[in-house]
């Protein structure tokens, strides 16, 4: 019998072919490979490139040395590796795509500036495996040939497809950078012209004086050769003045010229600013300056060389607003020559451009490099993911991270903006501070942008924004506060380091203001370094866009070995570091390095035994960027006064909260109204008695830490991915993980009990992935609680990390645990047990299989994400399937509806009882979110329900 190994030997076509080559055989260079590289390794397509990561290269076609690389972003030699930048610069700069002419065009008396549009080219070097998007632009330089200096900015990548598929985004980003650079260059060029004109006018005045002296010295009507020479020199200088004036006029006309490039991105604000500046300059140099002025100044200068020329200095200050090159400018005597033949030391790119604009351009390019970093397939999927999520806003709150940044990103790529003004204006809108426990109205508004018919909430948002969080909290009466605002305000109490945070914020403002400021700084050394701000931004999001592939390097190892949750005390520190990293990486501007560095100080470890004072860590709320810091500096609030003022408010919103879950809010007793709950007789709901319990709860469990994920900040995708690793460990280590996940997904509060805070926190962070509707900042998760919880807490939190302590408080905690044990699930991390009702469904089997072969946390996170989105879709279907919620006939009662729902879940969707409970819970949340988007959704539970099913104790 012939087996396949025997046959394969015969299938080697080449062996005989090599011996006697067929003259008619097609040479390989004219053929296509039958097994290209991509078949054997789809990831290896770009492996032959000599650089490791994509980078941005700025090159110049120097008139002295030819094409040369100037700088790379990131500015790290490791990025380019052995890739020959000189050669590549030669390749990308070897063509003058702009076809500009130089010098005097025919019929024109003066040299002309050529205003050429940028050109964009995608090209590659297939041998080197390098491909580039190249953006060609021209800058002006008075000393350069034809006054032009050709530059290009190139995005270099090993993946040609990545460039072509993102051509429009690249083009937009580089057009923005180019416009910014060119605007700065025109300003610098105009100033250079201004200085040159001053020199020329000064020279003219000197020559005039000398010529006058010559004339007077000689006999009347007869001019000596020296006098004639002086007169010629004077004429040349005057001609040169006319030429330069004309150049000034030309550069001033730049903003008014019609654009031929439909893809150019211009900022009207910048244009207007430039235009007014140019007009001033034009007015000023329309006529020759009075020779007397310069003569007097010259004399004065000759008298006291080295002294500051006051008048000149003042004048310069007036003239050169925004210029920090020199505090003053002293005109110099120059030889009258053609404008083309001046000193040939070519300026650097930085010198060619106004400093502010140059810095903004480099920042913009850095941001561009960051946003295009990573593998194309992940970039592509992320965009697709964002676009699809935007179409399902009604269910996003369940398991998806906030879309705000994506929205911004998309908006940013589509709308024209100016790098300089953007850096100042938009930062306040788009990048909240890293640690924010902002008042709930802000969050809810942000979460619910769909509802344009909500003028009230809009107004309140605006009002609060204007007041600032502190003020709004102080001014709102206790009864106005919702539970969420109370949570937020609680989180701000005791923040002894709030001043520091404010300072950090103020510093940020200051440095931004310095970028904005127009008047020159008399002492450049005292000027706040604009790099400071931008460097921090770079730091803050240096790894933001790293794809999952990038993250894998971080979590390698942890996944591959058998895992243990007993990582020891270092976990907590790790956690903090991760948070800090996460905040940095989330790319929010306004994140000061200081905040991250000082975070250990912000995390105040307080005696956990005393629950009245605190529980665990407190995180201060810094001021959101969107809120002007009105009143914060002028009315600093003593931290302790906040604690005192806001503590009692914790009691107030509870009743309202119970009403939230009901779709039938017209009930005469809204506080006690119960929503349509899951089917089954065994299910009860919160009653008025529970309300009394609530009172007790609020008075005791007063001090709550913020979210375990975002520490009060918005939970980011990266944090969730990190949590994925913890979740995978949990699933692998605990065979009863399935039950725990079911509890979370069906709305049963899970208490994670343990003595080791780090372990509990990490486990909570991991399990928080499975909490439906955790809130934008994870409000429904309590990472670490060191006091007994109450029934109200079970309503507020669906996942609680509880400290096990051996003290009187500890015994009361155990009491609370046993008291509410029928309503909750208890995961004991010390005993490694779980107490909860049994789960016999199938829906979750796939995400909680401890025998899974998924190796990495990031992969597991993706798997969980797709499973959860499938659950959300099913819940959406159940919620909005019309006939399940409306009687088909007028005679049909609630029992009929109930039966239909049951039948739908069991027969149509094929779900068991436990799986149905998940969908019912998710459906309730969706209903609540849909009916009351302004108050529901993210932070408030739909209703409090519990199940009398017997609990079991699961052990490893």
């Amino acid at each position, binding site marked *: 019998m012939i087996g*396949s190994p025997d*046959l*394969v030997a*015969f*299938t080697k076509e080449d062996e005989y072919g090599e011996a006697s080559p067929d003259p008619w055989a*097609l040479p*390989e260079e*004219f053929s*296509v490979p*039958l*097994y290209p590289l*991509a*078949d*054997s*390794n*789809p990831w290896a397509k770009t492996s032959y490139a000599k650089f490791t990561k994509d980078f941005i290269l700025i090159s110049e076609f120097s008139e002295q040395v030819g094409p040369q690389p100037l700088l790379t972003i990131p500015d790290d030699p490791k990025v380019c590796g052995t890739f020959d930048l000189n050669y590549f610069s030669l*390749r990308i700069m*070897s*063509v003058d*795509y*702009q076809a500009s002419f130089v010098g005097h065009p025919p019929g024109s008396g003066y040299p002309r500036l050529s205003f*050429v*549009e940028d*050109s*964009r*080219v*995608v*090209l590659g070097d*297939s*041998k080197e495996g390098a491909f580039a998007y190249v953006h060609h632009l021209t800058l002006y330089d008075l000393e350069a040939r034809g006054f032009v200096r050709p530059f290009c900015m190139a995005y270099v990548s090993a993946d040609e497809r990545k460039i*072509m*598929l993102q*051509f*429009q985004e690249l083009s937009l980003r580089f057009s923005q950078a180019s416009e910014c650079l060119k605007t700065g260059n025109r300003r610098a060029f105009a100033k250079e012209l201004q200085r040159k004109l001053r020199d020329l006018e000064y020279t003219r005045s000197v020559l005039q004086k000398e010529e006058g002296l010559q004339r007077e010295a000689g006999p009347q009507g007869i001019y000596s050769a020296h006098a004639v020479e002086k007169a010629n020199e004077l004429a040349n200088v005057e001609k040169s003045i006319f030429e330069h004036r004309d150049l000034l006029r030309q550069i001033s006309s730049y903003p008014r010229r019609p654009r*031929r490039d*439909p*893809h*150019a991105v211009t900022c009207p604000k910048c244009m207007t600013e430039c235009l007014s500046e140019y007009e001033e300059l034009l007015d000023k140099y329309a006529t020759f300056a009075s020779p007397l002025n310069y003569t007097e100044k010259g004399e004065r200068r000759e008298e006291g060389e080295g002294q500051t020329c006051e008048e000149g200095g003042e004048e310069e200050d007036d003239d050169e607003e925004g210029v920090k090159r020199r505090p003053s400018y002293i005109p110099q005597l120059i030889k009258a020559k053609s404008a083309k033949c001046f000193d040939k030391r070519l300026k650097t790119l930085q010198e060619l451009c106004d400093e502010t604009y140059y810095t903004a351009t480099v920042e913009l390019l850095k941001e561009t490099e960051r946003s295009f970093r990573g593998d194309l397939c992940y970039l592509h999927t992320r965009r*697709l*993911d964002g*676009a699809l999520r935007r179409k*399902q806003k*009604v269910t996003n709150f369940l398991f998806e991270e906030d879309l705000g940044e994506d929205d911004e990103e998309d908006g940013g790529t589509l709308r024209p903006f100016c790098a300089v003004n953007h850096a100042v204006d938009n930062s306040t809108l788009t990048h909240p501070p890293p640690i924010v426990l902002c008042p709930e109205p802000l969050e809810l508004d942000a979460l619910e942008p769909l509802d344009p018919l909500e003028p009230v909430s809009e107004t309140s948002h605006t009002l609060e924004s204007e007041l600032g969080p502190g003020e709004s909290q102080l001014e709102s009466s206790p009864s106005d506060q919702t539970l969420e605002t109370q949570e937020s305000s609680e989180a701000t109490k005791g923040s002894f380091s709030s001043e520091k945070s404010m300072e950090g914020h103020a510093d940020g403002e200051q440095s931004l203001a310095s970028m904005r400021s127009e008047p020159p700084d008399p002492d450049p050394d005292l000027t706040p370094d604009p790099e400071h701000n931008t460097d921090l931004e770079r730091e803050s999001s240096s790894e933001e866009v790293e794809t999952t*592939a990038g993250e*894998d390097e971080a979590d390698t190892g942890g996944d591959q070995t058998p895992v243990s949750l007993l990582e020891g005390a270092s976990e907590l520190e790790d956690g903090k570091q991760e948070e800090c990293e996460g905040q940095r990486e989330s790319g929010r501007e306004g994140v000061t390095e200081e905040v991250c560095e000082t975070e250990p100080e912000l995390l105040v470890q307080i005696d956990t035994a005393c629950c009245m004072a605190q529980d665990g860590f407190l995180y201060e709320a810094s001021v959101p960027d969107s809120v002007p810091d009105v009143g914060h500096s002028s009315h600093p609030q003593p931290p302790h006064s906040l604690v005192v003022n806001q503590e009692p408010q914790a009691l107030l919103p509870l009743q309202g909260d119970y009403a939230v879950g009901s779709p039938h809010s017209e009930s005469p007793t809204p506080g006690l109204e119960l929503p349509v709950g899951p089917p089954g007789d065994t299910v009860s709901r919160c009653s008025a008695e529970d309300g009394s319990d609530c009172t007790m709860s609020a008075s005791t469990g007063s001090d709550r830490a913020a979210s375990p994920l975002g520490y009060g900040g918005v939970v980011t995708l990266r944090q969730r991915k990190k949590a994925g690793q913890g979740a995978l460990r949990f699933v692998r280590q605990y065979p009863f993980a399935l039950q725990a996940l079911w509890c979370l997904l069906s709305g049963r509060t899970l208490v994670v009990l343990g003595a080791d805070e780090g372990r509990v926190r990490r486990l909570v962070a991991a399990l928080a992935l499975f909490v439906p509707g955790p809130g934008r900042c994870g409000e429904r998760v309590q990472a670490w609680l060191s006091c007994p919880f109450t029934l109200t807490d079970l309503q507020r939190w669906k996942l609680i990390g509880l400290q096990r302590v051996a003290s009187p408080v500890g015994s009361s905690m155990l009491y609370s645990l046993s008291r509410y044990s029928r309503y909750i699930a208890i995961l004991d991390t010390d005993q490694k047990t779980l107490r909860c009702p049994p789960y016999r469904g199938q829906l979750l089997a796939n995400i909680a*299989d401890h025998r*899974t*072969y998924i*190796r*990495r946390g990031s*992969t597991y996170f*993706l*798997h969980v*994400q797709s499973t959860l*989105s499938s659950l959300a879709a099913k819940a959406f*279907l159940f919620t*909005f*399937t*019309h*006939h399940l919620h409306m009687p088909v006939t007028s005679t049909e009662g609630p029992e009929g509806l109930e039966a239909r729902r049951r039948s739908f879940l069991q027969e149509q969707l094929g779900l068991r009882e436990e799986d149905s409970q998940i969908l019912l819970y998710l459906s309730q949340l969706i209903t609540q979110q849909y009916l009351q988007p302004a108050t529901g959704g993210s932070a408030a539970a739909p209703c409090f329900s519990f199940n009398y099913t017997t609990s079991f104790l699961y052990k490893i």
Partner: protein
Amino acid sequence: MSSGCPPQSPAVAKSEVPIEGECPLLAATFAYWDNILGPRVRHIWAPKGDQALFLSDGEITFLANHTLNGEILRSAECGAVDVKFFVLAEKGVIIVSLIFDGELKGDKNTCALSIILPQTELAFYLPLHTICVERLKHVIRKGRIWMQKGYNIISVLSSEIIPIMELLSSMKTHSVPEEIDIKDTVLNDDDIGDSCHEDFLHKAISSHLQTCGCSMVVGSNPDKVNKIVRTLCLFLTTAERRCSRLCKADSSFKYDTGLFVQGLLKDSMGSFVLPFRQVLYSPYPTTHIDVDINTVKQMPPCHEHTYNQRRYMRSELSALWRADSEEDIAPDTVIHTDETFTPDLNIFQDVTHKDTLVKSFIDEVFMLKPGLSLRSTYLAQFLLLLHRKALTLLKYIEDETQKGKKPFRSLRNLKTDLDLTVEGDLNIVMALAEKLRAGLHSFVFGKPFYTSVQERDVLMSF
């Protein structure tokens, strides 16, 4: 002795191509680097008719010459085709140039085949870029053989330049819009089966997704065809929709390689001639949907399709190489047989793999009330689920194989871990992943497939 005069410039030949409707292409050019004269334009193709924008021959020549600038430094491997893409705002044009080496008059020259469009068509053109480039690349392969043999390359190039002009012209009028109103699709029906049979719809969408979103819809009724085209396009990304075409009401377009979904009208006899070669050259396998008789057929999966495609290409190029004269083989001839390769003309097979993903989606989506955007939301959720599953699968394989360094041996585990045990589900998710990471099918399924093909070939040769 030199007379002191520059050598006579060869005249630039020009072909005017009659195109129906508005052609967004301004011109196509073939230029080469002459070792004495520098860049020279050899041939210009320009659409004939009333064009909104017009470039003079001088301008075209100027632009075409520019495409070769800098190529004196070219150090690519022999036979490589490099693509350059210019957006020249000063001239208001886009130029796509394919740079390659070829033999002209006994010398190795660098050549450029370029197409020129107005800059205003950038957004229109970009999604179609890959299609145009891939088609031009293949015609260049053929052209290089012709050049090597000393034959006229222009006729070979014309065989693809003209269809590309026609394609762009047809896309200008009949491309599927980026945003599709669900009301124009089958998914807006009150009940499943209103427009078409439930099983047919399920099969069509499932197969469409299994073949990477690449389908052709044929039928006699243009409205019916277009409704299915729009329905299938709902499952594509916006860029892919811009590479899809509705059918023309009065007469049919020709089949165009590379489009994702295309509607094609049958003739009065109720038949449609399917060009085997063009279908095989499509980057992905294709689903064939006949709305008249409610049949759905599909081509083999990606790895088989790619393999067949490459073998066919090699045979075609070999046949050209063996041709004795220019007239021997018309450029578009189907290669029916070769010593080593006989193409299987029966490339469309029944859809055998059932899935649960599309099945449950189709069953469920019609439960939602139409006209309230509920179905659009549910569709978005379904697509999100598919894309996430595809990314998870990709990541799973990436982890297992250390980014392709090791062979993938755990398909069974993958199916269990990612809940893809149903073959149809796996096919759908794999197809989406293939679009994200080209070559994935060949990497996962290629080895056993190649071995079995080789075994079959060897057995047949006995």
